[in-house]
């Protein structure tokens, strides 16, 4: 697979691949890194938002 890197497009077979996941109540995030000779040359992330800001409940006045 061809990967876009800071060195130009490269075949992933030439690169060290690292990946990780963050899963909590707010998000599910996966990230992918490619390294070349100890240098980070590509990093992408996919964040799936789970929990949105809460809004106070509205109500009408009681007479």
């Amino acid at each position: 697979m061809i990967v876009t890197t800071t060195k130009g497009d490269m075949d992933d077979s030439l690169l060290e691949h690292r990946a990780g996941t963050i899963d909590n109540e707010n998000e599910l995030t996966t990230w992918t890194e490619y390294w070349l000779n100890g240098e980070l040359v590509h990093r992408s992330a996919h964040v799936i938002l789970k929990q949105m800001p809460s809004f106070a409940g509205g109500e009408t006045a009681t007479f």
Partner: protein
Amino acid sequence: MANTQSMCTSFLGELMTGTHNFGTAPIRAVTTADTFKAALYLASATINAATTAYSATGEVSGAGYTAGGITVTNATPPTATNSSATAGVGYWTPSASLVYTTVTLTTAFDTVLIYNSTQSDKAVSVHTFSSQTITAGTLTLTMPSNTTTTALLRLATT
């Protein structure tokens, strides 16, 4: 039959479309939806409920990223759904993921600000996530399902 005191759920949805105006508001030249944008902010920035409008202060910068961020896809108008005689939800979610393609953002960022670029860049909502950097890569922010309990924006009565 009986009457029940409540805020009308239709009103919640209509707030999101600017149907009601209790004060002064901008004169709208068109009836189409405004354009909303999504800007990324550094983890060191201060973006919160007190934010009133988009600002470049604290915004990320780097190759492939344009100040102000990207346009939010808005193909689905707000919805209002009753849950009882006294409660309901008005809600809206962007209709596509927010995708920042082939960018390099080397300083850690953790926030996206949704704002209305049609209405003087007025702020809408702030969403945070784990601190990230991007190197010659793509950041994808996938939206939650557009439902009464998970939509990106929800105005609810209880």
